[in-house]
């Protein structure tokens, strides 16, 4: 470390010494006497000067250049003293020009206005120059100008950024109106690449990156900007694992790079890395846990504020992010104020969206009649018997029926239900005919509205962009809604030619409601996930039997039994919900100082503060609160796990710990983030042919996170919020070590130094080299692992600039690129030194507890960062006069030092360690073909097709995963297969006598039992990766006069998904079944025609399932294993009709009557249809595994969008 510091001091010193030296070269002019100066010129250019010494003093002092170029250049300084010259042969006649002489008097005054040829809008801020002079004017806010032209032959030049320059000869006219046309080639050709650190000239940039302009990626009605990238960029896959607002999609840039890490790309907004408030791994994104709602920090950005995205893909492009760049970087640039000559522009965008409710025709769910018939078979086989069904934890129609038999009414002296076969059948008949449409009950076609107003104005010294937006979503389901407010201010200012800067404030407030949810837990033995009290409306609709009903015959809410307490989903959604509040504010400032024209020092700083609270309201009438006091009879008291057995008196029955009220549980997450960076950039062209850009940077990142939570128990919502908590609740908590509140924090510290040099020769060859030195505290105290250097070299060759390149219209430009470099990431290990944590000893009695310290991990002196070496070859070609462009990138990645868990001898004291020992190879190709094939005035066609293919293979990994690790839905990783590979247990038919399933076990035998914990996994069937190999999109936009029609299709292929775990050895009467259940094995012989296992009767289930060794096993096993077998897997391939949009631009004449400069109206449909997916999915979305909690699928939605400008 000390050695490093010394080196770094040296480097920095050199850096600054260089700066000082560069500064000293600035002395360009020197004072000189006129007489001497003229003499010098006479000698050099062999000319002579004639002038009247009375008029012009020889002793005049002029500031003259040290070096002179042409004679005209040399005579330029004379202007300082108002001396004009006229050349006659070799002689120059000098004469004083009186400065006050008004030449303009002879000039022609020209007036006019400048408009946009497309929409007829006035364009303020257009520069008008009289050609060959310094006479300039600018249009005012109405687009009008006035300029003095010398004579009729003068030519006026109209220039405006982004528009084609127009020249007009004055002639006899005094009024000249001009229409400027947008320069398509300028818009298409991005001349500057934003890396977040630098806006570098594309000619100097040699990496693989893709720019997406927000207007091209617009998704009206989709408020989260991360979804704008869907199908837009080759090599970027966006998987919507949840459609709930705030839940981040699973984004991969060039596939996965880490076995244990998050594989999430880095988001950079206006040059500042956007840190996540909570870090949620990709695997955790699909859990539906409440914290996924704050998983996406970009959810606080207003889509209307986005100018563009730039996705940095290869090592050369991401190099400036060094040791955080492995998963690609998404650079977001927000809108800036434009130079408008001081006039303001106001834009309003309004989106009005409605959702479509899902319906059962899309899903494989039994209707109530079929469901009831399956249940009747189960009844006949011995399920749903009186004793168990009437007193179980959960109960549906049968529970109701048995309890109605005892429902005595003393007034009429009768029971609610007579215990006769006919009465019972009649009772059940109501449910058999119910055919409840849960989607209809729980979902709504509600309105999502977004309003965004932006203001922009600017002069050449100061430009401002300000916006605010409001989003209100009534929610896809009756349990969800969101409000979001954003505000954005961006000001750019120029104090002088040397000093400029910018100032940004960006804030958002979110207020969201979701169904109450608890954290999902996993069962390591069966590999199942469970969530107590899950009331996710989507999974409820999908998984609840349609033979259950939400309302009684009289229209009141109908309650069934869940967790020993009454349950109705509508009641529960009203009484058990989550409210999320988030406030996020970023303040950012930057300053640029040009030390000399070629050397710029800049400094950027940002401060961000985000605070989230999740308030879980569990009211007294919710099933969750009622379950805590379900103690109606001895059976319930004996089995309800929420009751408390007092260890001080073990002979007493369990008692209720929540006699009154419900819960009010709050979780807080806070983020405090400082960012500081200073840069020194040298940019100079030498002798026209050489261009050098050197960029040095030093940055510091500082992130504090805090998480805290508390369980508010006994809160009485109905009684004005009084709290009457029972001490037994806390006693139980104390004894079982369950903390009723907690707090934790995380401190991330980073420092980095980077140097980048880019050089280009004659615009033909460009070379780039970057090196970066990163330091972080995350790996622990030991200093050897803390620092990491990364580097890369790259180059590009613009073949079309070569002399031999024939001027042609077919291939209008051609460029090839190559990159080789190293990037890295911090893996999921931080034990460069041993890690100790404290805990309370896990013992039952108060007087036996003490604080202890345990080893969380042993020191790993070999710990280092995860690294990736990449070779990228790319080509950018344009065809047919730049109408079509094609970009192809090929890459190969060598990923090493990957962190994974490794089983050790255990002798050191840590059986499973995490260490850098994995290696992976990846390769891929990315193709983007697009352009504007037709650019007719009335008809335009823009198209883009992109696709990325990525494949990876683990080449080294010493882990020994259990079968369960490989067959469950997130897949596992083993050598020779891809990261996140999904495996299946081979299915081997059904048993002839009873219809239970067989599999191939680890010894190759046909067996109903496979030991899921076994590490013998080589016989499993490899299905494929869980991430798609091929992803892409196809976009088309047609413009005819005022109409624009666009459509986007996305596709993915090559991945496999595990089907929902539907099968079990017994089924309660509340859950739905799939239609495949109708094809189940019913009698011996059926095994020839079906692979769907039988419903076993309880006797067979417990006694007659015999494994290969002849021993009886529980039926739980084969049915559970069946869920992980080759029978329960589907391809994840899909083609999706993602978006269609039709826009009508209101005619100019009409708009201006309403004093609007422009107005348009669009109809947009999002997520229209899944055009292709595997039949085995039965219509389920292959991207969405409904895991309950707060997760919801992406809805089909239709939007009306209004855009108005003033």
């Amino acid at each position: 470390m000390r050695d490093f510091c010394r080196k770094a001091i040296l480097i920095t010193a050199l850096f600054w010494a260089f700066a000082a030296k560069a500064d000293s070269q600035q002395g360009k002019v020197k004072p000189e006497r006129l007489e001497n100066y003229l003499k010098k010129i006479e000698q050099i250019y062999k000319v002579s000067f004639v002038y009247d010494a009375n008029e012009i003093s020889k002793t005049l002092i002029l500031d003259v250049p040290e070096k002179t170029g042409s004679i005209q250049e040399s005579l330029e300084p004379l202007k300082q003293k108002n001396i004009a010259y006229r050349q006659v042969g070799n002689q120059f006649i000098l004469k004083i020009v009186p400065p006050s002489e008004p030449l303009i008097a002879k000039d022609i005054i020209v007036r006019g206005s400048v408009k946009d040829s497309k929409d007829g809008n006035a364009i303020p801020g257009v520069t008008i120059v009289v050609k060959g002079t310094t006479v300039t004017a600018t249009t005012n806010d109405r687009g009008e100008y006035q300029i003095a032209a010398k004579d009729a032959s003068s030519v006026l030049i109209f220039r405006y950024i982004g528009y084609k320059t127009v020249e007009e000869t004055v002639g006899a006219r005094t009024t000249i109106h001009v229409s400027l046309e947008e320069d398509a080639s300028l818009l298409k050709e991005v001349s500057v690449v934003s890396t977040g650190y630098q806006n570098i000239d594309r000619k100097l940039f040699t990496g693989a990156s893709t720019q997406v302009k927000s207007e091209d990626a617009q998704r009206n009605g989709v408020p989260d900007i991360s979804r704008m990238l869907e199908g837009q960029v080759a090599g970027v896959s966006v998987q919507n694992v949840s459609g709930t607002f705030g839940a981040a999609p699973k984004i991969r840039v060039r596939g996965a790079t880490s076995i244990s890490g998050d594989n999430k790309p880095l988001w950079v907004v206006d040059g500042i890395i956007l840190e996540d408030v909570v870090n949620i791994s990709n695997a955790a994104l699909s859990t539906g846990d409440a914290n996924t709602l704050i998983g996406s920090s970009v959810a606080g950005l207003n889509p209307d504020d986005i100018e563009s995205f730039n996705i940095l893909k290869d090592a050369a492009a991401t190099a400036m992010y060094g040791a955080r760049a492995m998963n690609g970087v998404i650079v977001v640039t927000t809108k800036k104020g434009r130079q408008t000559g001081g006039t303001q522009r106001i834009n309003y965008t309004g989106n009005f969206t409605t959702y479509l409710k899902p319906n059962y025709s899309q899903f494989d769910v039994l209707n109530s009649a079929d469901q009831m018939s399956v249940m009747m078979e189960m009844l006949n086989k011995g399920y749903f018997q009186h004793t168990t069904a009437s007193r179980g934890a959960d109960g549906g129609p049968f529970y109701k029926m048995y309890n109605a038999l005892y429902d005595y009414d003393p007034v009429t002296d009768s029971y609610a239900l007579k215990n006769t076969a006919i009465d019972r059948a009649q009772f059940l008949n109501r449910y058999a005919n119910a055919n409840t449409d849960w989607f209809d009950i729980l979902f709504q076609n509600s309105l999502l509205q977004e309003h965004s107003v932006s203001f922009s104005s600017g002069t050449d010294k100061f430009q401002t962009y300000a916006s605010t937006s409001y989003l209100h979503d009534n929610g896809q389901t009756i349990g969800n809604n969101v409000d979001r407010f954003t505000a954005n201010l961006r000001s750019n200012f120029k104090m002088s030619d040397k000093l400029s800067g910018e100032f940004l404030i960006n804030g958002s407030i979110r207020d969201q409601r979701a169904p109450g949810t608890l954290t999902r837990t996993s069962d390591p033995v069966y590999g199942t996930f469970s969530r107590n009290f899950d009331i996710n409306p989507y999974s409820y609709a999908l998984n609840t039997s349609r033979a259950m009903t939400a309302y009684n015959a009289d229209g009141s809410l109908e309650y069934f039994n869940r967790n020993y307490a009454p349950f109705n989903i509508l009641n529960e959604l009203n009484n058990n919900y989550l409210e999320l509040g988030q406030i996020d504010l970023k303040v950012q400032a930057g300053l640029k100082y040009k030390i000399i024209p070629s050397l710029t020092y800049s400094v950027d700083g940002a401060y961000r503060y985000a605070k989230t609270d999740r308030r879980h309201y569990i009211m007294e009438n919710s099933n969750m609160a009622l379950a805590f006091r379900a103690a109606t009879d001895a059976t319930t008291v004996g089995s309800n796990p929420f009751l408390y057995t007092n260890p001080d008196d073990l002979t007493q029955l369990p008692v209720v710990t929540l006699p009154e009220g419900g819960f009010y549980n709050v979780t807080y997450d806070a983020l405090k983030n400082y960012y500081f960076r200073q840069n020194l950039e040298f940019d100079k062209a030498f002798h026209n042919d050489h261009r050098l850009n050197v960029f040095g940077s030093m940055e510091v990142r500082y992130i504090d996170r805090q998480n805290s939570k508390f369980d508010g128990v006994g809160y009485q919502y109905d009684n004005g919020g009084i709290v009457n908590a029972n001490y037994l609740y806390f006693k139980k908590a104390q004894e079982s070590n369950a903390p009723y509140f907690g707090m934790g924090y995380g401190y991330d510290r980073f420092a980095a130094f980077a140097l980048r040099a880019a050089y280009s020769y004659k615009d033909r060859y460009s070379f780039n080299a970057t090196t970066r030195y990163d330091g972080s505290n995350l790996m622990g105290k030991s200093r050897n692992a803390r620092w990491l250097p990364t580097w890369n070299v790259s180059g590009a060759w613009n073949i079309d600039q070569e002399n031999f390149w024939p001027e042609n219209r077919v291939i209008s430009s051609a460029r090839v690129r190559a990159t080789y470099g190293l990037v890295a990431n911090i893996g999921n290990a931080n034990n460069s030194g041993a890690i100790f944590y404290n805990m309370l000893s896990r013992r039952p009695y108060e007087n036996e507890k003490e604080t202890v310290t345990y080893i969380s991990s042993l020191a790993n002196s070999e710990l280092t960062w995860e690294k990736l070496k990449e070779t990228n070859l790319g080509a950018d070609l344009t065809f047919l006069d730049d109408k079509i462009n094609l970009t192809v990138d090929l890459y190969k990645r060598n990923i090493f030092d990957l962190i994974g868990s490794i089983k050790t001898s255990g002798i050191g004291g840590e059986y499973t360690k995490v260490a850098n020992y994995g290696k992976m190879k990846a390769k891929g190709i990315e193709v983007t073909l697009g352009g504007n094939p037709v650019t007719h005035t009335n008809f335009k066609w823009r198209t883009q097709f992109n696709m990325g293919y990525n494949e990876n293979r683990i080449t080294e990994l010493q882990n020994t995963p259990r079968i369960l690790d490989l067959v469950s839905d997130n897949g596992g990783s083993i050598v020779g297969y891809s990261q996140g590979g999904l495996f299946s247990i081979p299915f081997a038919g059904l048993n002839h006598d009873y219809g239970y399933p067989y599999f191939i076990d680890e010894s190759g035998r046909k067996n109903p039992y496979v030991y899921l914990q076994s590490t013998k996994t080589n016989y499993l069937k490899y299905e494929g990766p869980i991430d798609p190999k091929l992803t892409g999109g196809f976009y088309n936009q047609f413009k005819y006069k005022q109409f624009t029609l666009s459509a986007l299709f996305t596709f993915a292929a090559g991945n496999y998904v595990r089907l929902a775990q539907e099968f079990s050895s017994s089924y309660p009467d509340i859950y739905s079944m799939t239609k495949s259940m109708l094809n189940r094995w019913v009698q011996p012989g059926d095994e020839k025609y079906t692979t769907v296992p039988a419903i076993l009767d309880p006797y067979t289930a417990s006694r007659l399932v015999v494994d290969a060794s002849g021993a009886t096993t529980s039926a739980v096993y084969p049915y559970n294993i069946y869920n992980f077998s080759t029978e329960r897997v589907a391809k994840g391939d899909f083609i999706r009709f993602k978006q269609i949009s039709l826009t009508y631009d209101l005619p100019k004449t009409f708009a201006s009557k309403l004093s609007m400069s422009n107005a348009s109206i669009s109809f947009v449909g999002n997520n229209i249809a899944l055009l292709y997916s595997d039949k085995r999915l039965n219509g389920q979305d292959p991207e969405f595994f409904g895991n309950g909690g707060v997760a919801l699928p992406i809805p089909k939605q239709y939007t009306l969008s209004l855009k108005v400008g003033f």
Partner: protein
Amino acid sequence: MKISKLKLAVLFSACIFASCKKYLDTVPDNRTEINSVEKVAQLVATAYPEGDYYTFAEAASDNAEDKGSGVGTLSDVSSKPYYWDDVIGADRGSPSNYWNTCYQAIAAANQALEAIDKNDFGASVLPYKGEALVARAYAHFMLVTFFSKAYVVGGTNDAMGIPYVTEPETVVIKQYDRGTVASTYEKIEKDLTEGMALLSASAYKVPKYHFTPAAAHAFAARFYLFKGEWQKVIDHASAISSENFASIIRPINSTLYDMSSADYNAAFSRSDQKFNLLLINLYSSYQRLTSPRYGYGAKLVNMFATTGNITGKSFANKILYYTVPSYTTYKHKEYFYVTNQISNIGITYLMSPALTTDEALYNRAEAYARLGQLDKALADINIVLANTVRGYTNSDAATLAKIATYYGITDPKEGVIKLILETKKAQFLQEGIRWFDILRTRMTVKHNVFDAQGNETFIELTADDNRRVFQIPEEARLSGVPLNPR
């Protein structure tokens, strides 16, 4: 201008780098460091193996029987050891799990000892240094007992021992040497004696969960019993308490007998009981294995009946069952450590009486017998009987004559030892202690096996069978440690 700018830059950089080190030294989360006596003490508190050996030690011993095809549940952790087959994997209750947790305990002791070495904590740290050394000896002793060939008194003991770890591991895969059984015992003895000298009875807030001098003496008694140093067994067992053993062993036929079953269930692992010398909180699910096919069944329950012992009266232990013939001693009460009270999720724990006065008394009795002091041995075992037999009167006391008749053994010494071991077997049922005696005395273990048709056959594990040594995790080979022969 030039110079001042340069100076400024260097100064600025120097400032950055000085703070840079400090900046990156920020601890990333709420982890702790071992930098005080208190922290050392807290760390040593986790130097006790959290795994259970009950599951496999009981199933492998003659404290298990096959209850019949289709009876009870099958699970590898209890079924495989019954057939003396290796258990694959490191699940809770498996030998590998016990191996891992022992070394985990050793690592905690070593980290504490390293912290003591590197810091100057003064004399107040010595009791914890002692505890770390004794805990390290204990974990290694348990390892060598299960994973190496049994120590043969007077033998060469040159079979493979187990790696004796004395410093923290700092690399991912480190190479280790197993040494021999003899060398392992030597190191255990060294740590034990060195550590015992430093222990203090008053150093702990919760003494029953730590090596107090009393607990260390009980451990030493067990250790020397294995080593055949009988006098040391007697000395250490006698040093445990100044009280008479009669008042500090499990009051099976009095206090415990009078308890409700719920209280009885909790009593064996409570720290306020005098008979418990060392309790360890185990991360275990043994208590949930209520009805294994191979376990405490109808044959074994006879040990507690009137015909089961020399007195002709039954033992006062409670006979409880889940469904006949799945019996339970009901000694183990689960502690459900709750991680989330609202969703009722948690982890199962068991408080295990790792060292008891009862065991020490049996050990002393056996040591007396081995030394030929049969009267003293009889006196000790009669203390046990007096506390165990239902309706015990002085006339029920064991005598050499009764022993000879009851067991039909002529050698009185052999007979006394037989009585001690048989009584111990019943009293420590479901506590794993029987396996130690099987190893020490080179007993042959006989298991019955029922086939699907109900035919009973028998399998045997003889004194020199390699399967008496549990297999160590396969991954040990990564560290250059050979597996046990099969």
